[in-house]
């Protein structure tokens, strides 16, 4: 059995050796950008000693779409459709985060009802993202059936969101000050029914996957991201919480109306792929809790301010606004020069930092583990490349 080094032993190594003279008997393996188990268009250049990984060079940029350059060419409103395409799996969260950031710059008050709808939709989106991850992660490591179950449940969420927003994936639901469409009682009923349904399904997931010996064998002790590595690389989200740090932007820096809801921050101590799996599944349950509370408390009222602004012209200045996306801390850094067009929008995306930690995690593991590790990180490549 190949030995797995403790993460602490490799966490201090920081820089890739690609470009240096190859070590004797080092084998170079190129995984991706088209590879069955590389998510999207990630490319990893592995430097191997037999099956053992000596070093890894993630090569990114294959989905670079110039979001930040586009922001310099269009006004604040016209950047809206871009946001949900940065991370299309939690597009709703990104879209609303951008709205919230600009609202903060323009000092626009958002009606109560809109805030509640935003929370419900964001959490539904988070669950759909986690369900997709659940399916594809298991697909990567050889389980085909869970993929079909997870997508079935995910379709329920897409149906609910599609009914309101009109899109299945790349939502453009937020507007500065509110939302495009109000929800009706059918939406709330459907959401309640979905919460009930997923609560019944989760034990099935656990029986099918969590307890499975083969699955545990693939994941236990694999790809440990400990607190030291997490801090050094700025890892956030479920990967950080799996290392035992209960950091969640919804708690650390509450935005919107998240301070009104009761929820726990699930953590695990071991920091391995299994811990990340457990954290995400536990997060689905917490999201269901938030949705339940929000659906119960949602007030009546408008979803847009009485007198919506027509021109969005924030004063010169800068703003950093962070939200918790499905993958970690998503930050928007907006610099305004006082005109209608942003001077610069920088998107701090969680997968970027999470993937950057790979050179500290992958060495001393094996190729087969690489699949499980990269899968368990849950990266979305266009979000890294922007």
């Amino acid at each position, binding site marked *: 059995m190949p030995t797995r080094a403790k993460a602490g032993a490799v966490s201090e190594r920081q820089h890739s050796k690609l470009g240096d003279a190859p070590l004797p008997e080092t084998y170079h393996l190129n995984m991706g950008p088209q590879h069955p188990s590389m998510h999207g268009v990630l490319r990893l250049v592995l430097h191997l000693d037999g099956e053992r990984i000596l070093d890894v060079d993630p090569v990114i940029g294959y989905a670079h779409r110039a979001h930040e350059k586009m922001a310099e060419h269009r006004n604040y*409103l016209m950047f809206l459709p871009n946001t949900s395409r940065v991370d299309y799996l939690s597009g709703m969260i990104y879209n609303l985060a951008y709205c919230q950031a600009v609202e903060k710059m323009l000092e626009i008050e958002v009606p109560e009802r809109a805030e509640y709808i935003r929370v419900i939709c964001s959490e539904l989106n988070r669950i759909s993202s986690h369900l997709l991850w659940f399916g594809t992660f298991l697909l990567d490591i050889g389980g085909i059936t869970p993929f079909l179950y997870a997508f079935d449940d995910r379709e329920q969420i897409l149906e609910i969101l599609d009914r309101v927003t*009109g899109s299945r994936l790349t939502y453009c639901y937020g507007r500065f000050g509110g939302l495009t469409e109000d929800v009706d009682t059918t939406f709330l009923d459907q959401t309640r029914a979905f919460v009930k349904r997923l609560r019944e399904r989760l034990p099935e997931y656990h029986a099918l996957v969590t307890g499975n*010996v083969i699955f545990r064998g693939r994941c236990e002790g694999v790809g440990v991201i400990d607190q030291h590595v997490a801090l050094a690389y700025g890892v956030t989200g479920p990967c950080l919480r799996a290392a035992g740090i209960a950091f969640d932007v919804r708690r650390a820096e509450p935005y919107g109306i998240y301070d009104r809801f009761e929820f726990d921050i699930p953590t695990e101590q071991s920091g391995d792929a299994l811990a990340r799996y457990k954290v995400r599944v536990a997060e689905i349950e917490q999201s269901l809790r938030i949705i339940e509370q929000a659906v119960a408390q949602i007030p009546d009222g408008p979803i847009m301010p009485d007198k919506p602004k027509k021109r969005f012209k924030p004063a010169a200045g800068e703003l950093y606004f962070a939200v918790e996306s499905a993958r970690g801390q998503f930050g928007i850094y907006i610099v305004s020069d006082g005109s209608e067009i942003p001077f610069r929008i920088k998107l701090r995306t969680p997968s970027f930092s999470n993937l950057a930690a790979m050179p500290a995690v992958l060495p001393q593991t094996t190729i087969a583990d690489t699949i499980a590790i990269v899968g368990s990180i849950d990266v979305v490549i266009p979000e890294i490349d922007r």
Partner: protein
Amino acid sequence: MTATTRAKTNYLVTVLGGLFSLLAGMLITLRNLFRRPVTEQYPKSKPALSKNFRSAIALVRFEETQTHDCVACMQCVQICPSFCIAIEGDKPEGLKRKRATEFHVDYALCSVCGLCIDVCPTNTLKYSRVYDQVAYRRDAFVYDLLTEFRDAEVAYLEKARQEAAAKEAAKQAAAAARANKDTAPAAANASKELEND
């Protein structure tokens, strides 16, 4: 317990555990076998599109005029982040308001954000219900939104022109009436006749 026996026991536990998880998984599969299938039989049964379903934009046909109400104000062209709308418009003869003469949308560029629908001052934009159009050519997705309105537009313009002419005539008549009070009843009758046309 010696190391060998422990290893043997562990091995046995692993094997039994694996067997158990295999059976647990199969049980779930078996249970799901008797559930109602979730597959949508797409080409046979069309999906029920939601009322807010977003797709390429289309023009609203208003009840009273039987035509669209695009006044070619170009606000949607200005706001569109994807540059997918192209409109041409001019003032029809005898009318004061501009009307669209060309309205093309390139659905291949569109990101269905809905900003154009938000800014439309006459609310004449809506989402169409196109969801499964495919083509062998890349230029097949430039939609001419005015095609279905050509006839209605001609009728509408004719009517509008008449109304405008009637209004103009009434105005002139009123002016004439002010100039010469004696002819006032006749002018009023004339304008009424025009309106009845």
